[in-house]
């Protein structure tokens, strides 16, 4: 085996402040294999790969890579340019593409010396076309990347790495933005390339992909390599045990029969600049005692739908009915007063004001409330008591309620938002990607609160790109695609996946 090893990560460690992101991680990569790197959010997968690619400098450990004459040479650390030269390519979860320039320009950027009088376009084009036909990855080259679809952008990212003659390719959560069918196509293309000698590391937390597409897997937990195995010997149970330390059981409580409709969207259209920010003739009914799951790949209009229900976007056509009565003033404040609880997708950007204290963030949605203010002046003792009580009740931990809320961890920020929202006993709850980026403990807290709200008689709209979450929690499922909602008749994973991809069932 040793003979075909192409890359060695030896004892890598990295600390961010008080958090040990990676602790003595050693991984060897074989030529032509697909290695899956698994772990929960925050287990240190991305940090590890960022060290490999030179974005981060390890605190200790080293990286060795096989050179042309078959001996191992150390890789210069903390230098992306050295990693590129050594043949390592990385496809980041957040694409590193400049949107104003074309795919062709993005691919060739930095591949030629900066200070030459002109670009050698012809030769580069030929090389890219070659790579495209060998790998099966096709993307339009001559329009600005800003106008490409997410799948196309990802292919451009991979082409970028291959253009620099990468023989080791690292993919960070490559399927997060793809439909199951697109993901399958990606993996079959990758398989084609590994046959030609490419080695692939892909980061994921989706078991299905690991089991179907990888040759070998490595599990990280709390920054440590806690086990590796051949995929042929692995099972979901085995992997889950490694990932969380003990076997997880997802138990979702049994369903209650939904009551009468409380919220209806009637033939609503919103004209955005593209399909990503539009809605086309959407109708939807939410009943009490119901969790309505909206499945779909992000960027199909979910965020406009969320903004609409949050009161941030006005419909160009159609109406929103609350218990049969059309809502007249659609704005965030009015929606809050009407009993909408909103858990935004981007908690840092939309959920909290990081510079304000935890206690201030807990009352930010009810500044009109006479309990909070007297003639326009804040009642700070009430505000602080409120924060104290809610922090205990919802287990919000941090440096203190009078400290800036940006100092909280992601999970605690989400709990702060839950406290703020659920304490008002909302009748309708909009939860947009509520567990994204949370560890399992915090995620199950969020899910528990959603179920409790449903059991109390509320209606919950759950937007999530995690199909497992939707299948586990929702009483009814619709699929969002191309700015439209589609009813689902079957609850099979495959059927929903096909609908997400746009095939008729």
């Amino acid at each position: 085996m040793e003979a075909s090893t192409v890359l060695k990560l030896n004892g890598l460690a990295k600390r961010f402040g008080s958090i040990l992101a990676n602790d003595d991680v050693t991984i060897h990569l074989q030529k032509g294999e697909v290695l899956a790197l698994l772990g929960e959010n925050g287990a240190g997968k991305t940090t590890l790969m960022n060290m490999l690619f030179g974005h981060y400098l390890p605190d200790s450990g080293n990286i060795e890579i096989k050179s042309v004459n078959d001996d191992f040479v150390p890789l210069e650390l903390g230098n992306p340019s050295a990693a590129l030269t050594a043949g390592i390519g990385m496809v980041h979860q957040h694409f590193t593409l400049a949107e104003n320039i074309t795919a062709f320009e993005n691919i060739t950027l930095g591949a030629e010396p900066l200070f030459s009088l002109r670009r050698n376009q012809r030769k580069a084009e030929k090389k890219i076309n070659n790579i495209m036909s060998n790998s099966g990855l096709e993307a339009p080259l001559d329009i600005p990347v800003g106008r490409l679809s997410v799948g196309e952008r990802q292919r451009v990212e991979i082409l970028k790495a291959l253009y620099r003659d990468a023989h080791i390719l690292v993919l960070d959560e490559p399927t997060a933005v793809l439909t199951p069918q697109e993901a399958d196509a990606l993996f079959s293309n990758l398989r084609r390339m590994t046959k030609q000698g490419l080695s692939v590391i892909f980061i994921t937390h989706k078991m299905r992909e690991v089991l179907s597409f990888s040759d070998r897997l490595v599990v990280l937990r709390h920054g440590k390599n806690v086990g590796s195995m051949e995929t042929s010997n692995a099972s979901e149970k085995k992997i889950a045990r490694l990932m969380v330390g003990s076997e997880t059981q997802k138990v979702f409580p049994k369903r209650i029969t939904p009551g009468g409709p409380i919220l209806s969207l009637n033939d609503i259209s919103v004209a955005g600049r593209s399909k990503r920010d539009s809605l086309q003739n959407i109708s939807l009914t939410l009943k009490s005692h119901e969790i309505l799951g909206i499945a779909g790949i992000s960027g199909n209009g979910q965020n406009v739908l969320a903004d609409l229900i949050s009161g941030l976007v006005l419909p160009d056509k159609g109406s929103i009915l609350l218990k049969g009565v059309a809502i007249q003033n659609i704005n965030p404040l009015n929606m809050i007063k009407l009993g909408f609880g909103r858990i935004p997708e981007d908690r840092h950007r939309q959920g909290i004001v990081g510079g304000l204290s935890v206690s201030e963030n807990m009352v930010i949605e009810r500044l009109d409330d006479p309990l909070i203010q007297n003639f326009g002046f804040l009642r700070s003792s009430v505000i602080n008591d409120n924060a104290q009580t809610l922090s205990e009740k919802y287990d919000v931990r941090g440096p203190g309620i009078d400290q800036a809320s940006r100092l909280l961890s992601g999970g605690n920020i989400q709990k702060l938002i839950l406290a703020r929202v659920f304490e008002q006993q909302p009748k309708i709850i909009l939860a947009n990607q509520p567990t994204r980026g949370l560890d399992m403990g915090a995620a199950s807290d969020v899910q528990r609160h959603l179920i409790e709200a449903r059991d109390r008689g509320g209606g919950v709209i759950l937007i999530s790109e995690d199909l497992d979450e939707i299948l586990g929690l929702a009483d009814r499922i619709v699929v969002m695609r191309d700015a439209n909602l589609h009813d689902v008749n079957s609850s099979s994973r495959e059927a929903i996946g096909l609908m997400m991809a746009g095939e008729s069932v």
Partner: protein
Amino acid sequence: MIDILNILLTDSFWAASLRIATPLIFGVLGALICERSGTLNLGIEGIFVVGAMCGWMATWLGAGLWGGILVAFLCGAFFGLIHALLTVPLGLSQHVSGLGITLFATSVSYFTYRTALPDVSSPPRIEPFQPLDIPILSDLPFIGLVLFQQTALTWLALIMVLLVWYVLNRTNLGLAIKAVGDNPNSVDAQGLSVYAIRMWAIVIGSALMALGGAFLTMSAFDAFFFGMVNGRGWVCIALVIFASWRPGKALIGALLFGAFDALQVRLQTEMGALVPGQVFLMAPYVLSIAALVIAARSADYPRALLTPWYKGQR
């Protein structure tokens, strides 16, 4: 109306337009390079003052006209470097740093001028750049006066437009500048240095701005006065947005502005009795605001403008 038409048909009007546009061309190009790489440079107003003062003073001290231009270029680059250090590796507020550079550069220039020339009633003068006199071309009707009797600095400005356009659109360097202003991670992931590209862009951009200032004291006039830049830098910031960050449109914007300014001077002499002269003086600034509003929502703005980037934090 007939009056305006008559003015528009004279060659002297178009010659004046190009002359007035020259410092703006330098300034807009400089600001454009900075912003394309992702950094707003509000130091422009002060860098104009520095260019005007240093270029003039170097010439007055005997460096020669082109020596003066070189000194202005280097001084602009120096103040650009300060702005670059503060905003790129340190990632400080581009607004505040830029205003700080403007205050700093202006006060350094004024202090130096006052210290070198403590009490002079009338400022000393230099022999400025003379209009080119190209044998046949300068005698051509109309375009002879408009194009071929300008000073060498105007021609330098026009060449700079071509050069900046070529670099941005035809070279790898330009590609890197555009990419770093759009998404610095794209540049970092390809192994190029975000810091180096951004800092060089600011330094070179600032040096170009200083040439705009130098034109004022070394071509348009022959001496340095306090307050002579008079908001030209800010006008350039507005024009960059009007130009959607494109060199060609920047030239058009500067020329339109120059033409308008030249027109108002001429209208002032014809209609001065009817309207107070200040109305005409205000017009260029009002026009700049209008240009800003018209083009404010341009789609292809540099997406990383005003956003600092730190190495190793993504």
